[in-house]
């Protein structure tokens, strides 16, 4: 098949070259739509409304400079250069404003609270950035952190994606170089909003390649404020995703560019962005599979050509070598299944290119058949080799997180650690609307438009849309990946609608109206139709509707009604996004806020209070055990060694902590002592109603521990007979004796002075029976009881067990020394306690 877009220039968002001249003529008058699209500004509205006020069914029509009928007057006498210049200036200004809006809308957290690092992972990234900035790149690279995963330690430099830290480090150095000494914390806090602005820009470029620049501007505006992306990129949310989405869009843009131009330079740009992505985010495998899939689909569609070959080969060769420079990735690109698709397509492309060359040189039907068979055979053989290598263990099979993408129940059964993360849960339907609002409805329409013009880049969008729609449905976290494509598709659909209703041209003759009405609304489709053979009737729907009245959709009132509705949608969208951003996504989660009864804001700063207490009151090498969620925060804010943290690389170690938390003191104590634990930290929300506390996460600890020690920890034992998860009187003995339960509710009923002790998260009443802790003593409880810290007692100085010590302290006497009277001195001594 002859490549349709072979000679189309870089600007060819417009249809095939043969008709491009004509469509240009038509599209020039449509340019004022730009004003209406993004900031719906009054000027255009008035031009529309003033004639519409004059009449009911019959409208005054105007003539443009060339004598064509148009629906409303346009300024005449403008040279095409002036229009072009105005257009570019407007685009630039609008884009700049969009970037500003994208940055501005992410600053709620800084204004409401302070310039603080959010949540959990960002604390580690921040800490790593400090190491990078203070000690230099090589120290960062070789950084061994003895305080993480105590006592295993973590070779941080080779087990992280350094892209984020290096990026902010470079920014920090650049700012210093121009004599702007900025605290690294502020660079980290502001990195995500800054890159959100860049994302808007790259989305504009990407969409402009797909459709028109006006659609690009819409897409930029959408991605700039879409909550699905904001959720990961508010100021202070210093995580890999903060820069990853920009790189994602930039590399997709340059891929499309490379594919269109067939330039190996653009292929290399794609590869460089890809390498940056690999360095920055584990989600890079999405690109690693998207691009090969796109190429593969194009091959299947019979669209193989040399541009594809050049673009793909240059991307794959340079990108793979570049990605292997990241210490954490190293040989993964040639040894894991996730990367095999890219390699396979690369091989396939070479084969096809070879065959094409040979076919051109050697005519002959049998020979061609032979060649085709050869291609198929090689493909089959190499695929078989891949399977064999995988099963023989040379190529690592898919990682667990990948399996959970295909089988949503897989993680819960086999890897509770992955299933336990709330952002790995399947997405609930409302969250699609919550995160994307009206975009989710325009999304299918945009995909439909991509099907309409099935050029290479539209195929890309379709694949991206289908894949990411699936992924976003499987994992909440991947909402982030679908957001850009939803914005792009919605922008395409939206701009098509606006285009159709703003396009001022009307049929020149009422007699032709029925025929013309079908063609006219969209100049683009008309142009396309002229280029290709008549396949379908675009927008015949509106045309038919319009056929009833004399004026159809060319009437100004119809235009006005539809456009007003659309603009209303946009206003609601902006309102919704702002509301969601400010109410849901701008909480740093290390600082909480609540409303007092009089409406004033009450800051709950328990986390930092507790972490600061630890920093000030415990020895520097005191090991703090907590559930892994708080590992990074303890390391970052309290600066103490932790047993497990959010880098969940060692399931056994996490299970050990889970076992200690879910077992009785007798079982837990040896574990604590073996790991040199000095303090145990639990998060308890029962007093305040903070639902993200450890008791609510407790079942995951149990499950993870059960995964390692099925005989010792059993989930069933934590449920009541009727299968309820109860913490009140109905709670099972196992539950009540577990370390977590005891630490959470230790002395809790005392707060209520005899009244029923109400747990405000679970709405249950805690029994009044005092909880006795033998091996732990309370060291610190924060103001609102969110953080509770317990000190692990050492072995008793005179060798009693801790129960006996507690009993003795409580004034109870020993009846008879059990071991002394029974053994009569001849028994084997108990093992001496360790240090």
């Amino acid at each position: 098949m002859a490549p349709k877009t072979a000679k189309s220039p870089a600007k060819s968002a417009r249809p095939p070259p043969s008709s491009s001249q004509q469509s240009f003529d038509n599209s020039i008058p449509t340019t004022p739509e730009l004003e209406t699209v993004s900031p719906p500004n009054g000027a255009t509205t008035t031009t529309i409304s003033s004639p519409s006020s004059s009449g009911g069914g019959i409208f005054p029509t105007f003539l443009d400079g060339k004598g064509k009928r148009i629906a409303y007057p346009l300024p005449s006498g403008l040279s095409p250069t002036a229009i072009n210049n105005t257009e570019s200036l407007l685009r630039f200004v609008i884009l700049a404003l969009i970037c500003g809006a994208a940055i501005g809308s992410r600053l709620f957290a800084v204004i409401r609270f302070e310039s603080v690092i959010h949540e959990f992972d960002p604390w580690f990234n921040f800490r790593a950035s400090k190491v990078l900035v203070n000690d230099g790149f090589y120290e960062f690279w070789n950084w061994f952190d003895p305080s993480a995963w105590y006592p295993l330690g973590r070779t941080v430099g080779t087990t992280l994606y350094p892209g984020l830290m290096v990026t902010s480090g470079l920014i920090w150095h650049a700012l210093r170089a121009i004599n702007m000494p900025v605290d690294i914390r502020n660079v980290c806090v502001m990195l995500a909003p800054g890159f959100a602005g860049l994302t808007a820009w790259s989305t504009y470029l990407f969409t402009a390649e797909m459709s028109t620049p006006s659609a690009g501007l819409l897409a930029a505006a959408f991605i700039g404020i879409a909550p699905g992306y904001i959720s990961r990129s508010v100021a202070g949310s210093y995580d890999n995703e903060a820069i990853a989405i920009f790189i994602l869009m930039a590399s997709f843009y340059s891929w499309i560019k490379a594919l269109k131009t067939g330039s190996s330079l653009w292929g290399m740009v794609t590869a460089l962005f890809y390498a940056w992505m690999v360095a920055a985010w584990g989600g890079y495998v999405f690109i690693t599979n998207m691009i090969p899939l796109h190429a593969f689909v194009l091959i299947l569609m019979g669209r193989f050509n040399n541009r594809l070959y050049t673009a793909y080969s240059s991307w794959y060769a340079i990108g793979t070598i570049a990605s292997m420079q990241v210490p954490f990735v190293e040989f993964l690109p040639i040894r894991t299944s996730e990367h095999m698709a890219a390699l396979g397509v690369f091989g396939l492309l070479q084969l096809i290119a070879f065959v094409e060359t040979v076919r051109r040189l050697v005519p002959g039907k049998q020979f061609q058949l032979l060649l085709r068979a050869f291609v198929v055979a090689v493909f089959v053989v190499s695929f078989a080799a891949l399977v064999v290598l995988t099963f023989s263990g040379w190529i690592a099979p898919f990682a667990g997180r990948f399996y959970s993408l295909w089988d949503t129940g897989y993680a819960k059964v086999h890897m509770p650690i992955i299933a336990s993360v709330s952002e790995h849960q399947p997405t609930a339907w409302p969250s699609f609307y919550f995160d994307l609002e009206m975009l989710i409805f325009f999304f299918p329409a945009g995909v439909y438009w991509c099907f309409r013009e099935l050029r290479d880049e539209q195929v890309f969008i379709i694949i991206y849309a289908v894949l990411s729609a699936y992924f976003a449905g499987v994992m909440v976290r991947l909402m982030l990946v679908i957001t850009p494509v939803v914005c792009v598709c919605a922008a395409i659909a939206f701009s098509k609608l606006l285009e159709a209703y703003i396009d001022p041209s009307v049929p020149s003759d009422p007699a032709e109206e029925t025929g013309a009405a079908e063609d006219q609304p969209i100049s683009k489709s008309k142009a396309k139709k002229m280029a290709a053979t008549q396949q379908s009737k675009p927008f015949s729907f509106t045309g038919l509707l319009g056929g009833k009245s004399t004026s159809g959709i060319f009437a100004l009132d119809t235009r006005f009604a539809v456009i007003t509705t659309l603009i209303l949608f946009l206003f609601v969208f902006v309102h919704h996004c702002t509301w969601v951003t400010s109410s849901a996504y701008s909480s740093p989660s290390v600082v909480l806020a609540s409303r007092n009864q009089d409406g004033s804001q009450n800051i709950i700063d328990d986390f930092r209070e507790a972490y600061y207490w630890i920093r000030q009151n415990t020895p520097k090498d005191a090991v703090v055990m907590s559930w892994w969620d708080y590992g990074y925060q303890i390391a970052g804010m309290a600066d103490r060694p932790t047993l497990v943290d959010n880098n969940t690389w060692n399931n056994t170690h996490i299970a050990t902590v889970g076992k200690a938390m879910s077992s009785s003191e007798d079982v837990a104590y040896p574990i604590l002592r073996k790991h040199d634990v000095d303090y145990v930290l639990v998060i308890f929300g029962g007093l305040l109603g903070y639902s993200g506390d450890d008791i609510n996460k407790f079942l995951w600890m149990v499950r993870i521990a059960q995964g390692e020690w099925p005989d010792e920890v059993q989930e069933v034992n934590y449920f009541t007979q009727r299968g309820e998860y109860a913490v009140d009187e109905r709670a099972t003995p196992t539950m009540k004796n577990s370390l977590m339960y005891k630490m959470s509710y230790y002395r809790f009923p005392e707060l209520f002075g005899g009244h029923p002790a109400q747990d405000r998260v679970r709405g249950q009443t805690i029994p009044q029976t005092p909880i006795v802790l033998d091996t732990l003593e309370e060291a610190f409880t924060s103001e609102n009881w969110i953080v509770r810290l317990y000190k692990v007692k050492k072995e008793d100085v005179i060798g009693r067990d801790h129960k006996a010590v507690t009993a003795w302290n409580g004034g109870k006497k020993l009846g008879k020394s059990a071991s002394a009277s029974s053994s009569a001195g001849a028994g084997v001594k108990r093992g001496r306690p360790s240090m």
Partner: protein
Amino acid sequence: MRTTSFFLAPFVALLGLVSARSATGDRVLVVLESAVSKDDYSKFWGSLKARGFELTFKEPKDKDTELIKYGQNQYDHLILFAPTTKSFSPSLSSKSILESQFGGLNTLYLLSPNLTENQREHLREYDIEFVDPKYTLIDSFSHVSSASASSVLLPSTSSLVPNDAVLSPSTLSGGPIVYPHGTVHTAGLNPYLFEVLHASKTAYVGEERVLTGDEAEVEKTVGGKGSKEPVVSGKKAALVSAFQTRDNARAGFVGSGEMLSDKYWGTSVKTLDGKTVETGNAEFVSDFTKWVFQETGVVKIVSSTHFRAGETEPRDLYTKKDDITFSLTLAQHVSTENGTASLAPFQVSDLQLDFTMLDPHIRTALVEDINSTSDVGTTYTARFNAPDRHGVFKFVVEYWRPGWSYIRSSSTASVVPLRHDQYPRFITGAWPYYIAAISTSLTFLTFCALWVSLGETDKDRKGKKKVE
């Protein structure tokens, strides 16, 4: 806990100051109940004074007795000789005694068969169980001829539990020990507890009174209540036990306070055979109180260090496979004849080092290093290669022998992987890859050269085709 300095600091500070023989101090509080006559034990008090101790005598109910004041122990040692006292002043309560012991107080309990229930409860905390009141140790075959069967004569060779740290060789081979009217206890499984003196084979626990020969009555007097409890006899009957807390505070339990009386202190007694033998009580009690009051069996860690081969300073980070040397200097507390104390070498052959991360990765013997051993301590060193495993490791030395101070040393260091520039640059095994890379590059260059040197027309034609 993790640094040896924790153990060292107090000892080192004391080194220059203390001239007494005890390693911890010489303030002794003696709590005597009124039933005990102080003068009956004058020889014992004298011996203590001669060893440099300052004795303060108090009644059990003295209100002004204070073991702890402002969080500080007021005495270094306590002799509690009040077995029949039912209630003590609050500062001598079971709780405050234990608390002082946690703070380092050494205690000598001098007991008798009429031990009150309160004190039994207190002693149960150490995992020691005493036989019922009114029962004493009786030996019809070996006792002081001039006294009843309850003044048991114990041959030192078979009744003393040999322990280098506690008993001197002369005591072990010395005269028999008189154990008059003493109670008997059994030591539990507490790992900090060990026996020093037990009864001989022919001794048993029973009621001391004249028997008529009625077998049933004999049965009744022997052992506990009827047949419910086992008869405690022979070696199972512990008479003197010693206890060393986790923090090396010491306690001694002597079942018969009368052992210390002037009556048997350095005197001679007649055995049933009619022989006159010199009692070993004075030597035994001296040895035992020396141990309890930290004069013997005290070992200190003078210093510990670790370094990489070719260096001298300890590092926080070692690289995998590094050649690491760990050295530890131990010194023994010794008393000289003129009443001063000093440190002397402490030589053992079974000291070992663990290089631990969760589990010991390396366990190796610490060997005495003759070169660096000085007068005030013995230096032990171990040299080993760091394991091929990164993580936070501890150098752990634990040496627990009954009687000796527990030696615990733990210092932390991390073992890290090689730095990025520490790997070998060129490996001979990788030559196939080098050759592959070089040959591919050369072939590519050759190909390019050929391509460029081909005719213009040919190139044009091909280029055109490609564009299509």
